[in-house]
């Protein structure tokens, strides 16, 4: 019996999602592939955004996929780590900015 929820080998099976719903699966992958094509942003920039978001949503599949994708594109580990700090700053900032709500509440109740 599998002892963990995540298996790195499952990432390779992502495409099989469509087997249980061909229409929506295909639409999703079409959309996904279009999103990552070069547009106003380069594929390289999109890969770094994806890497940062992967960490924010803490998806191990995505982290594996976009770390590998970054390496393929010649993105350096310094660039990768900076992208992560952007994600981390936003995530930390999102916690902290709610402190204003806390302060408002304290000031109202006990000001």
């Amino acid at each position, binding site marked *: 019996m599998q002892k963990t929820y995540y298996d790195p080998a499952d990432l*390779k099976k992502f495409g099989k999602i469509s087997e249980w719903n061909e229409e929506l699966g295909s639409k999703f992958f079409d959309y996904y592939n279009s999103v990552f094509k070069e547009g106003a942003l*380069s*594929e*390289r920039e999109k890969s770094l955004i994806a890497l940062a978001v992967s960490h924010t949503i803490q998806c191990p599949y995505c982290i594996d996929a976009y770390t*590998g994708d970054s*390496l*393929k*594109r*010649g993105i*350096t580990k310094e660039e990768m780590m900076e992208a992560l700090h952007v994600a981390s700053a936003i995530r930390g900032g999102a916690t902290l900015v709610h402190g204003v709500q806390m302060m408002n509440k304290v000031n109202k109740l006990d000001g």
Partner: protein
Amino acid sequence: MATKSLQKLGSDLAQSNKQLKILSNGIFKNGELPTFKDKISETNQFPLKAKKLEILQINVGYMCNQVCDHCHVDAGPDRKEIMTRDTMKQCLEVIKKSGAHTLDLTGGAPEMNPDFRWFVEEAAKVGIKDFIVRSNLTIIRANKKYYDLPEFFKKHNVHVVSSMPHWTKGKTDKQRGDGVFDKSIKALQELNAIGYGMPGSNLKLDLVYNPSGAFLPGDQAAMQKDFKKALMDDFGIEFHNLFAITNLPIARFLDYLIASENYEDYMYSLVEAYNPAAVSNVMCTNTLSISWDGYLFDCDFNQMLELPVNSKSRHISDFNEELLEGRDIVISQHCYGCTAGAGSSCQGNVT
């Protein structure tokens, strides 16, 4: 960082039969992944046949001033296999009578062969259309006797193709050795200074990118753009084209894949990226690789795996272009390296 060849270290992987065994066992034997033969058979591309000869690639010896981690030749200062002048003379006869439009000298560091300059001078006289020397760049700065190589290349209108795994020092030195990046930059600047790689210049300077680890190269055009921008912004360096080459799982790269427990995942990624369109253009279909001792191979990789051409003409002494044309290419699972994504060859992408 490697300092000695696998051969010098007495590693099992210095033996080609051991490498071939690894490439045929495990995930390929138990059916987890299809063999290359099965894969190309799916699209009726087996047997892979040689077409008209266009490129003669001559390996003038395995000696090199560098010991790069990924080297498929297992080259290094300790390798003694060097092409003699007699064999070079036989090669010149082949160059003269063959219909190939491109001559491609490789190694090791070809410049370390004591008869390298003589060979270049003689070969240049034949008037072949594209005369390539694969120079690792650092050789130009390795010793005073090599300082004039850029001028020598220019004199003979040699097309210089050089390895450059990344535009940053850290990634380059990790793969190719401490100090390689700085020396390569200096050598590129010297080549630029005499006209190599400049826009519109006939003195061709191309770079070869191959990944520094267990991953496939990204899009060649995008990589070229990034390389050009970074090398120009940081060092004022110009070059013509970037060839993105996939590391093939043989010799030192195979050793690295196994030691770092990346072998199976890497083979999976090669098989997943398999592109049947690349198969029809793989370099073995228009190239012949000649070893330091004059034997003929479908490619430099097969040379290192000691898989000779499947033809009665097996040595330059009995070179016969008619016999060689249409021969069945000798394949194994390392061939997946040339058919992944946009395909890979010594000239970069093949699709």
